[in-house]
């Protein structure tokens, strides 16, 4: 069964090479991409079932595993436990839905001259990078996974290289590279302290390192992961860079890239530095992330920027659950991560539809959408309420679990966090309803700039650089929403609802995953083949 473990990485990488070969044939490229990502989804589901039934799987690539002579694993180690399997399944679902959407958008709105032949290969490499990060069994491999997905994301973010995207791309690349350098410094220090980078071995050896040194190591790694996950003092790059990218790219970035950072924080916190020495720092960072993020969202006019700020804000919930380092907190975090990947991606896809149909994503220009397209209103309403945490949707369930965990912890700081979570939840609801009343309910004539619109629906390539606006009435008819964009959006909404309907089994699974994550001995024995 462990032969399945490397497949989520191998399939997208090989498919990326294939799609580059057939770059002149977009149809074939699309078929290969869809087939590859469907295969990744199938493999991930198999891994999920297997890891739940049988237990953690470890694969030592090239046979460089632990030797009988007592030498630890030397090569690349890939590990699947329940947490990584769940992350793989959710990511694969989102990746598949978004690529469907991107293809649907490209077919309808893409220009023949656009060099989109690099879009799908880059997207596949991004998928491979995300999978490496979730499967990595040693810290350096995690670093490589980060780099793979970051390099791909640089290309996707600046695709078409219009003026705005180049400006944004440079700051994004610089921030990402600085975080990678800090990660590398952390790696060097960990290696100096423990003499290995294999996570299972580190879990054992770091226990002998002095507490002060251990906390310092954790702090360096936390800064690196915190930048990727957009935790408050390190989050200001995100709302600047995400909104300018094309809708499907923003959607997949918002859903997945920050969660890779959160996943790394979970692993480091529970496996490597399990004594919780920095819990107080994490709790304060979580509180500030929630509040500062959502206050930022209130001030925004552009829906994409507004959603980027809520994304930052809700990262705080996940960090909150991790920092409690209790089983219930971890369960809540795992469920919340799955919920948030799906709902945030869905919302960005819906904004892509809004932008396409109404010719703008800024609230100053939007209005009357509920009357113009009731279906679009419904598509926005469900994930928006879900994000705001309205019962009985999955956002509510995840938040309740986290609040319960905070109350169970009972310390003053935890109660502060509980209060902060409730306030953030209410403000999130306020923010998404503000979009609702402005973009959907009021008449377009009431919008301050309602008479203006963008020239063309934004496709992968930003063509609206010089000739920005035209009168709304002079706009070319965009027609109905293309099925290729509508179906994946609806499918993701259905997944979000399934997280609600099947909340019982999923919470059960999250609970088992949390139990496993909080018990590093199991991970260690699976990787180092210590008989239990």
């Amino acid at each position, binding site marked *: 069964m462990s032969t399945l473990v490397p497949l989520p990485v191998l399939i997208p990488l090989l498919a990326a090479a294939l799609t580059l070969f057939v770059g002149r044939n977009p149809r074939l490229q699309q078929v290969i991409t869809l087939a590859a990502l469907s295969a990744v989804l199938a493999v991930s589901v198999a891994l999920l079932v297997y890891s739940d039934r049988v237990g953690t799987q470890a694969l030592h690539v090239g046979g460089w595993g632990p030797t009988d002579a007592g030498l630890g694993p*030397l090569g690349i180690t890939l590990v699947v436990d329940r947490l990584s399997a769940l992350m793989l399944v959710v990511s694969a679902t989102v990746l598949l839905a978004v690529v469907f959407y991107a293809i649907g958008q490209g077919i309808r709105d893409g220009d023949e001259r656009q060099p989109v032949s690099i879009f799908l290969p880059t997207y596949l490499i991004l998928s491979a990078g995300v999978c490496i990060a979730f499967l990595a069994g040693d810290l350096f491999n995690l670093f490589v996974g980060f780099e793979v997905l970051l390099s791909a994301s640089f290309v996707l973010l600046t695709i078409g290289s219009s003026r705005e995207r180049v400006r944004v791309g440079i700051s994004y690349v610089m921030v990402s590279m600085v975080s990678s350098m800090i990660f590398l410094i952390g790696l060097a220090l960990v290696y100096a302290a423990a003499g290995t980078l294999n996570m299972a071995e580190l879990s054992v050896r770091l226990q002998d390192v002095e507490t002060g040194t251990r906390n310092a190591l954790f702090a360096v790694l936390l800064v690196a992961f915190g930048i990727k996950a957009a935790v408050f003092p390190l989050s200001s790059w995100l709302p600047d860079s995400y909104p300018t990218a094309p809708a499907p790219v923003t959607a997949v970035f918002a859903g997945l890239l920050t969660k890779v950072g959160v996943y790394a924080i979970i692993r480091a916190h529970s496996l490597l530095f399990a004594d919780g020495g920095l819990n107080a720092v994490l709790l304060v960072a979580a509180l500030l992330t929630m509040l500062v993020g959502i206050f930022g969202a209130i*001030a925004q006019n552009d829906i994409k920027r507004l959603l980027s700020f809520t994304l930052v804000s809700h990262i705080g919930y996940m960090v909150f659950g991790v920092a409690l380092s209790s089983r219930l907190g971890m369960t809540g975090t795992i469920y919340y991560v799955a919920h948030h990947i799906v709902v945030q991606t869905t919302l960005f896809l819906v904004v892509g539809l809004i932008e396409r149909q109404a010719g703008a994503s800024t609230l100053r220009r939007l209005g009357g959408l509920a009357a113009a397209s009731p279906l679009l209103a419904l598509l926005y309403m469900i994930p928006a309420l879900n994000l705001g945490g309205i019962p009985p949707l999955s956002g509510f369930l995840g938040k309740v679990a986290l609040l319960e965990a905070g109350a169970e912890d009972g310390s003053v700081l935890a109660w502060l966090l509980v209060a902060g979570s409730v306030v953030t939840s209410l403000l999130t609801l306020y923010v998404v309803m503000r979009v609702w009343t402005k973009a959907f309910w009021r008449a377009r004539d009431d919008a301050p700039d309602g008479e203006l619109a963008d020239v063309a629906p934004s496709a992968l390539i930003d063509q609206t650089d010089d000739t920005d606006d035209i009168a709304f009435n002079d706009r070319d008819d965009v027609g109905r929403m293309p099925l290729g964009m509508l179906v994946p959006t609806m499918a993701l909404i259905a997944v979000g609802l399934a997280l609600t309907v099947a909340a019982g089994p999923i919470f059960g699974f999250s609970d088992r995953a949390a139990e496993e994550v909080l018990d590093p001995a199991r991970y260690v024995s699976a990787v180092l083949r210590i008989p239990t």
Partner: protein
Amino acid sequence: MTADLVPLVVIGGLTACGVYLLLSRNLTRMLLGLLMLSNAVNLLLLSVGGKAGNPPVRGRTSGDRTTTADPLAQGMILTAIVITLGVAAFVLALIYRSYRFTTEEDLPNDPEDIRVAELGEAELAEAQRLDADRVKTVAYPDTGEPDALDALPGTEGSR
């Protein structure tokens, strides 16, 4: 583990220069800062891998040393160098593209962010303007004089 002073001083110096350059708005300087920082980190990895002068091949000796040099640290440095090289090339292309657009090398601020920041001031000015208007046009100023209604027959003296 013991460490040599000279590499550590070099690493510290490179890091400091790298961070200083990164804080600039000039794109070429930022790239140079990034490269210096990455070289500093690579040196750090190298110095972490053990003392200099150990034989690289297992089972050989170099002078009187028999401990094999740590291959893992060198493998990691190689990977890091390759990654930095690729990203540096990409950043150079971006800088050139940015230069073609703006014919300057400095990174501008986020325009939407500035708009949102100015929003507060604009709203404040608007509110103050409204307040100023409101003082002039109070609907029913209390002047102490009898109202027009008071003069109507049947309501005299209602005040």
